[in-house]
């Protein structure tokens, strides 16, 4: 009976504690606070936060999520925004947020130091988002599996249609992954819409699974669960650095790319600090942190040293990716539903 009494007491205590400790929303940092949603890997996010706090003394509250989740959250919170800055993650949701007016224009004094593609995206988004890194689309294959299955060397998009790769290619579902949507847009831009869809239909026969997450095929290739996988090349590189038997391929026909972006949230409570971070994140020093955190994207500041492991953008035949067109909601919806109807539902 004693115990029971204690339990009841504990329950009540816990209840009142909850009320007390949680009802007071947020932190009480009046000065120098910044709320950041971070769309890249945890380690990179942490390193950025640590460096920024050290450099400026601003206290950063960081939450790491995938870009899609961040977009959904910022949209849901738009009536009363919680976040100040959205840093990292693929450019499409940033572009979409810009289109829907969830983010604000800002012209950083550092704009002049940036690569052309970053500036171009900034202009296309009406100054609402800026490129901070970029990564090219490509594919990788497991060299050990390729040897056992007698798959010849793969170099081009067309090679992925080889009959030896039947049920051996993995790529994400463009409905759930920005990476896969980049592939869809890239193929359409390289081959034209009709030929492009012919290609995707042919590829469908070799695809064993459309994964949910864009980077998942890289892991599957590393684990030997599939022979080839289509991802951003830097995702494959991370696996290679981790000693996976993977060969990373920049397709010979040329390829599209993503621009990892940064936007300031509309209605940010700490607008000045958000701008401070924005300017800082565009410096070469800040952009060096990526490689230190094992992320091998290409930085947008011209003077940032490109990590040696990173796929050299100069070695890759990059297409002139039309972010404005293929990033717009309308075109995206059209292409996705076309892909759903014409490719995904095909019998194998």
């Amino acid at each position, binding site marked *: 009976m004693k115990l029971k009494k204690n339990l009841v007491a504990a329950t009540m205590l*816990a209840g009142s504690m909850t009320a007390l400790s949680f009802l007071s929303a947020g932190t009480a940092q009046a000065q120098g606070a910044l709320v950041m949603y971070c769309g890249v890997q945890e380690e990179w996010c942490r390193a950025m936060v640590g460096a920024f706090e050290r450099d400026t003394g601003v206290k950063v509250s960081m939450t790491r999520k*995938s870009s899609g989740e961040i977009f959904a959250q910022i949209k849901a919170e738009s009536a009363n925004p*919680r976040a100040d800055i959205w840093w990292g993650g693929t450019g499409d949701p940033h572009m979409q947020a810009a289109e829907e007016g969830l983010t604000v224009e800002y012209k950083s004094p550092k704009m002049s130091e940036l690569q052309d593609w970053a500036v171009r995206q900034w202009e296309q988004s009406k100054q609402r988002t800026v490129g901070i890194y970029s990564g090219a689309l490509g594919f990788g294959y497991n060299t050990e599996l390729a040897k056992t299955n007698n798959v010849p060397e793969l170099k081009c998009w067309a090679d992925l249609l080889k009959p030896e790769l039947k049920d051996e290619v993995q790529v994400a579902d463009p409905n759930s992954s920005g990476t896969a949507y980049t592939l869809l847009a890239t193929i359409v831009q390289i081959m034209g819409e009709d030929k492009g869809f012919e290609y995707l239909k042919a590829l469908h026969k070799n695809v064993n699974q*459309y994964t949910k997450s864009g980077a998942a095929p*890289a892991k599957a290739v590393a684990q030997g669960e599939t022979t080839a996988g289509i991802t951003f090349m830097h995702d494959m590189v991370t696996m290679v650095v981790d000693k996976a038997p993977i060969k990373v391929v920049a397709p010979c026909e040329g390829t599209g790319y993503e621009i990892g972006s940064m936007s300031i949230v509309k209605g940010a409570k700490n607008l000045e600090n958000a701008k401070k971070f924005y300017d800082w994140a565009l410096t070469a020093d800040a952009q060096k942190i990526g490689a230190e955190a094992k992320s091998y994207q290409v930085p947008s500041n011209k003077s940032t040293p490109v990590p040696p492991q990173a796929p050299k953008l100069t070695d890759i035949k990059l297409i002139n990716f039309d972010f404005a067109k293929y990033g717009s909601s309308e075109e995206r919806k059209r292409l996705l539903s076309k892909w759903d109807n014409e490719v995904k539902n095909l019998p194998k």
Partner: protein
Amino acid sequence: MSRATLGWIVLGWVGFALLPWYGFDRTAVPTLTDYIVGGSALVHGLNGAWWLLPILVPLLMSLRPALLPSRADNSTWLIASGFLGLALIVIEGFTIGLNGWTLDVLKALTGGNGPSQAGMGYGAALTSTAFLIILCHGLAARGWCRGDAFVTSSIGVVIALIIVFVFFPVATILASAFADNDGNFAPLTFLTKFMDKSIWGLDCLSSDLRCGVAWNTLFLGLLVGVGTTALGLAFALIATRTAFRYKKLLRVMSVLPIITPPFVIGLALILIFGRSGALSSVLWEWFGIPRSRWIYGLPGVFIAQLLAFTPIAFLVLIGVVQGISPTLEEASQTLRAKSWTTFVTVTLPLMRPGLANAFLLGFVESLADFGNPLVLGGNYEVLSTKIFFAVVGAQQDQGRAAVLSIILLAFTLGAFWLQHAWLGKKVYTTVTGKGDSGVPLPLPRRVALASYFTAIPWALFTVAVYTIILVGAFVRSMGRDYTPTLEHFLTAFRIERTDRGLYFSGSAWDSFFATVKVAALSAPLTAAIGLLTAYLLTRQRFSGQRSFEFGTLLSFAIPGTVVGVSYILAFNVPPIEITGTGFVLVMCFVFRNMPVGVRSGIATLSQIDKSLDEASLTLGARSATTMRRVVLPLLRPAIVASLVYSFVRAMTAVSAVIFLVTAEYNMATTYIVGRVEAGEFGLAIAYSTVLIIVMLLAILAIQLAVGERRLGRRTLSTSASPVAAQAIP
């Protein structure tokens, strides 16, 4: 007028005149005067917030019964005061928002933006609660619920909580099912989305195309419901009715999967059965069986969900099996029924409420599960992942997510309805106030064998899965590099000794502490509210009981993703502005996990004779005392079940919290998901191992604290003792 009523009237005034009515801005630094008097509704009201002043009217009304305690019409005054107070607070709360009037009509009428106000704070919360309780006390004084103020207040509070934390957010998101992208009412859009072929297509029957996602979900749910119930029953029978030597071990092991963070079982299954998994390699190298990808799809998700949800069935069924009156079985045996016949005709039917509950939980869990289909689903799509990607995926279609949620909800409620239809109105009371002197029957041979043959291989399989997980935490990279290392643990849980004491520099510490804190707070709350609800549902009669029950199930039926988004939509703006706090996480867990407490509470309570409560009441114990002294001790299995379940779910849930975590309250699971996404399986597994150990310790602590239920039943060994022999007249 009871002292409790008086107390609540005083608290109503305290909330209005002393405590801060509004929540503090996150950047503000409140002073003491902000906390006391300075921020109160009274001061705000006199300083321009005129809309707060009408609340004084019901507060003054409540004083009349307090000052003239013996009037006959006091109950009327209490009811009027409570009702008016609640109504006023709700009206002013919802019409005046952060940016002025919330209704365009009012903007047009007043020709301006109107006044604005922040979210409610301690004062508003306390005053609202006081009004609610005053209302309930008034109703009790009128003889509602046998004049029991505790019961009416409990009903009132639970209903209010369910309305605020279940109906309100769910209504918010479901409203978007009928809206187009601009938020206008568009029933046609709903119809098109609803009738979509990708949801209802039946192509898999006629060709090798895929079937609609709704059918996939339903099929998987049925398989998992049946599977978990069967396995859970096998474990429960072995644990309670056999002399199996390792049943303690079996019990622990059967509970292991429930405490495993999401993704981990999926990862382990890939590492065993995947194309380059351990088992596949062995089969290929020794027997030449070609490697395949069979694990991706229905089989993989099915196995993973069986592993994950069997423990729930087990926890539900063990209470029920223990509660079956042995006398009934003995009665059957004396009627010349063989032990097998007894089992089939008496024992099994008596377990019907338990079986139905176990099935319902397995089915609903499978429907709402998100982690396993994500990792192992392959091309087998289910509603929960569809909904998630409808929200966060490339299409960003919230309306579609809402439509899919409605379908998911319909399935769950359908299962609930079927369960009721099947159980019917039969009475399953087996713990009566009469002492039961029967001895539980040993299991019939074939049932025992069947139980062993299902449970033991399954237990071994669980061991294999956990070995993989354990090994994975201590090697560099599972499947590629088996160099033993502690590196993962060091990254996550490094502790440094500095001049100022210990510094937790590991990357996982923040989320770890936050998770433990939130879980430890939500578990007792969940159990308390869940069991209170079960008590109200089984022991009290009041109108609207059915819809009340439905409300408690609703949050469970809605997939976590949708709950997460709906909480953000509903609680990010005044009057209830709690996103970004730990409180919203706690409430989310409480109301998502409460149904388990309710179900297991109902299952156990329906076996306990109602006259036990009544006896206690006539002996002068009030409902609250009766709860504590009579009902709760007999409910111990259900308490353990709901405490364990809610603690564990708070530590392992992912889909709902992924939207609710903040920098301050980052949860372990979101951290792990991040690791998995980054391909750092080792770190993810290492962190999961730590969580598993924490949860094991917590479960042991819960079981120690709550203790076993004493029913005074004899076992075989004591029945032969002289004491018992003497007892027979």
